[in-house]
């Protein structure tokens, strides 16, 4: 079968122009220009789909497309080969223009075995391109996933442009002389596939070759085999009749600068390094491994040259305890985890609230409750972050909106932690952590200068009743309400802090009712006061006259933003509000919300932000929720928003325009 129509038209998240066709058919290869494409690679966890996806992403980034990725893998390291639970996939959306999501649905699905086909086919819209490893469609593999007949010849794949390719045997042929055994040679089939896709989408290949040489430096025969398979795949594309068309997606216009491809976890880790450098404080990370946060520990462990100490603790409690101990000593304590770890850290977070020491707590959220869905994404820890402690224990909560934004969010979290001497919760999630996008590398000098936020105490700041100069650890800065921070080693400023209520000022243990009431209110006022430093609400409303607003936080920025573009393309008006700061909210948020007839709040939980907004501002927020472990699809969000607009009292809908249909 020959694939000659460009795979476009999937209900995707961006305003997409129809691609120019220039296919001539026959044996002459033609090149078709596309403005964007979404590819999903699916295979067994042992097939190296994540690696293949990451390589394709790097090639695509190097080529200059805008891109967004969605890795999706099982929690098991190796579920039984060829089974449905063992399927791992990687979706990449790339375009010649600025895009916001990894795409609602793929245009192209590569399925390395029947299990991958079965678990992913329903996402591939009719007419989409389906590439299959025909070698894997054996009676045994088919039986494993319950296919009674072989979909390759029972006609069930007619709705798609199906191209069966013997990927495994062609890889083996290509490596016949490599000296590798069959099993080992077979493993390179992912590189064969990558070669084929690289040909199909005109990707540069040097980066992958360099990468393979570097990765298998100590095993040159493996490097050579992978490179040979990669080239064979590329050449196969070039010469086969099965693929008559290759596709060109021009680089996306981007602001001048140097770019790299970055995942959320990587960006977050680099943000922490940068915050350390910009504040002049050494970083101390105390962490216990947990998906999907472990990569931050891995990344920071590489940067010891920056004076970063990483401590793999015996559990999450020790991780945060050690970080807090380091903060007491004048370091910037950081702890990274996911929801179950935050649950364990709760008591120590309370101690940090009480001792008023800077501390960064990173929660890379995953599906919950309990162990939940470790490798899937969710936003369901918001209320845990806000309230998951005993007593009145407020802390700032902030969230990044995209993988690259994790960098800036980390620096902002550190700014708040240091300026206000408080633990800060940074809520990332699995989608941001593992997803990637091009990131404009910032100039160090352009990053916030945090040196002014430190200011250790060096002498007495008060006097005792008889006039002797004394150090009062709970003496506060009148503006920020931050308490004085004297580090051990500083002569004359010895003091004791701890979890018992402290007297205002001198910090002695105090059970005085009035003092407790005052201190509880003061700690709250300190957190509330942060609003003064965060600027007004970020509202995107191009004409400024929308009557419906959609509000979100964290990683839903991309899907909500893409949905808003669709809405606007249909001629409707919509305001998009996206919150970086959830505690405290921007000072003007109540006023902003009051401007709209309706406020829609999509979240990957059962309405946690909506609950906060209703409680705080008495606005009747319309909550739209999904907890599937997967990010929102922008088309679905667009439908929800359109419905909200169309049913709001003063409809601003031009006749005949349908947000969902107009773009396809």
């Amino acid at each position: 079968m020959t694939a000659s129509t460009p795979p476009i038209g999937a209900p995707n998240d961006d305003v997409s122009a129809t691609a120019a066709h220039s296919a001539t058919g026959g044996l002459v290869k033609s090149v078709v220009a596309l403005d964007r494409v979404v590819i999903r690679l699916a295979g067994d966890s042992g097939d190296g789909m994540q690696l293949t996806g990451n390589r394709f992403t790097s090639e695509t980034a190097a080529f200059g497309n805008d891109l967004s990725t969605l890795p999706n893998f099982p929690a098991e390291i190796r579920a039984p080969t060829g089974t449905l639970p063992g399927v791992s996939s990687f979706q990449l959306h790339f375009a010649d223009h600025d895009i916001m999501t990894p795409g609602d649905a793929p245009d192209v699905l590569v399925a390395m075995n029947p299990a991958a086909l079965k678990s992913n086919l329903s996402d591939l819209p009719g007419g989409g391109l389906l590439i299959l490893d025909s070698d894997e469609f054996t009676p045994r593999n088919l039986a494993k996933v319950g296919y009674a007949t072989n979909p390759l010849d029972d006609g069930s794949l007619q709705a798609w442009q199906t191209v069966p390719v013997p990927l495994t045997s062609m890889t083996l042929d290509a490596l016949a002389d490599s000296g590798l055994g069959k099993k080992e040679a077979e493993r390179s089939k992912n590189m064969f596939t990558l070669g084929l896709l690289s040909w199909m989408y005109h990707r540069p290949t040097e980066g992958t070759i360099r990468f393979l040489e570097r990765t298998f430096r100590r095993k040159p025969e493996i490097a050579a085999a992978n490179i040979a398979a990669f080239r064979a795949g590329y050449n196969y594309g070039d010469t086969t009749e099965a693929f008559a068309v290759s596709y060109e997606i021009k680089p996306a216009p981007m602001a001048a600068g140097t770019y790299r491809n970055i995942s959320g976890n990587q960006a977050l880790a680099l943000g922490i390094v940068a915050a350390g450098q910009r504040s002049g404080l050494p970083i101390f990370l105390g962490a216990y491994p947990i998906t999907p946060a472990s990569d931050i520990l891995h990344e920071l462990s590489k940067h010891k040259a920056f004076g970063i100490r990483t401590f793999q603790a015996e559990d999450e409690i020790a991780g945060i305890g050690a970080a807090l101990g380091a903060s007491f000593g004048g370091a910037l304590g950081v702890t990274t985890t996911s929801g179950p770890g935050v649950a364990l850290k709760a008591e120590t977070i309370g101690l940090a609230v009480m001792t008023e020491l800077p501390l960064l707590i990173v929660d890379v959220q995953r599906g919950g409750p309990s162990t939940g869905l470790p490798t899937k994404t969710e936003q369901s820890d918001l209320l845990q972050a806000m309230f998951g402690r005993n007593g009145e224990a407020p802390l700032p909560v902030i969230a990044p909106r995209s993988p690259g934004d994790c960098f800036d969010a980390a620096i902002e979290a550190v700014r708040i932690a240091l300026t206000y001497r408080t633990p800060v919760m940074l809520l990332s999630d699995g989608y941001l952590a593992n997803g990637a996008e091009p990131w404009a590398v910032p100039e160090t000098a352009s990053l916030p200068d945090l040196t002014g936020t430190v200011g250790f105490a060096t002498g007495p700041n008060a006097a005792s009743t008889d006039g002797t100069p004394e150090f009062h650890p709970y003496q506060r800065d009148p503006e920020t309400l931050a308490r004085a921070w004297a580090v051990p080693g500083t002569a004359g400023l010895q003091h004791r802090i701890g979890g018992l209520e402290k007297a205002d000022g001198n910090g002695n243990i105090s059970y005085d009712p009035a003092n407790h009431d005052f201190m509880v209110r003061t700690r709250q006022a300190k957190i509330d006061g942060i609003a003064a430093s965060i600027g007004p609400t970020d509202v995107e409303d191009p004409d400024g006259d929308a009557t419906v607003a959609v509000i979100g936080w964290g990683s839903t920025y991309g899907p909500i933003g893409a949905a808003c573009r669709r809405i606007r393309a249909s001629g409707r008006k919509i305001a998009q509000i996206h919150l970086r700061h959830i505690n405290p909210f921007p000072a003007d948020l109540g006023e902003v919300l009051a401007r709209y007839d309706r406020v829609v709040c999509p979240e990957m939980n059962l309405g946690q932000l909506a609950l906060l907004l209703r409680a705080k501002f008495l606005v009747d927020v319309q909550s739209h929720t999904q907890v599937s472990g997967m990010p929102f699809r922008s088309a679905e969000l667009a439908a929800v928003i359109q419905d909200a607009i169309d049913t709001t009292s003063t409809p601003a809908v031009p006749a005949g325009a349908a947000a969902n249909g107009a773009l396809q």
Partner: protein
Amino acid sequence: MTTLDAHVHDLGMPGNPISTAVADSVALAGEKKTDLKAKDLKTDQEVRWCPGCGDYVILNAVQSFLPSLGIAREDMVIVSGIGCSSRFPYYMNTYGMHSIHGRAPAIATGLAASRPDLSVWVVTGDGDSLSIGGNHLIHALRRNVNMTILLFNNRIYGLTKGQYSPTSEVGKVTKSTPMGSIDAPFNPISLALGADATFVGRAMDSDRKGLTDVLRQAAEHQGTSLVEIYQNCNIFNDGAFELLKDPHTGTQWSIPLEQGKPLVFGPEGAACVVKDDFGGLRIAETNQVDADDIVVHDATRENPAYAFALSRLSSQDLRYTPMGVFRSVSKPTYDGMMTEQLDTAKVQQTADLNALLGGGETWTVGD
């Protein structure tokens, strides 16, 4: 000179500059005073233990002995958990943190690992360190972070008013165990040795000399030191250690551990310690064994099996309780090795933030 050495050990870490920000403010605060008196270590806080509590005696012993280490009080930090004993930091004019139940070793680990210039102490109770904080304790011990842990063992939960603890003897009748406790206790020394602790000692609250001696060795030790201090809770477990304190029974049932000396004890040295047939130790009558068979105490034995066997001599009712230093061996410290890795990394790579941010595969878009 031991005292000076201790100071240098705890503060020394040559070539390990603390952060500039910390160093600058420490320098600004002025000179360090190391010739201290016990009263310099007292605070203006009213001590709130029950009259007669063993904690007072320990506090006094610590305040009298610490100045001899020659460490400035601002360079000492005491981190505690929760319990009666954990109120300790409030009464010491050093830096201190009264943290949360069981977590002091973890907090102290972060502090000691990031500030090798400080002398870090942990004060904890038997419930604090062996129930809720058992995990942190064993991990601190195996890591060998440079700090000294004082475990106040009163074999009871004092602060919560008298429930049995993980060191209470089986059959202990308390409010929560009216028919007697049914779970076997930990022997803290055995537990610590099982975790391969590099310094393990035991002392009695009322024995000023013995306590000071063990404390000094613990403070001088490089790495994690654990000192179990038998502490009388006269309210909820009064007389728990009377068997060992009573001048008459005390000599009979305690085994003083003196480095390089044969393990002979009891009235007229009637009892001694010899090897048993299974690789352990047993008690024998001195006049029934060959003098050469009596074990000579050596806390520096690399293999913890010897110290462990010593710790197993005692029973729950405290008969045959060795007192003193069980084990003191030298191993690299966690904080020292962490610092070394940082130093090595600094030689291998430059800390160039621009280079780090712009690392990996990049591409450039022109104007």
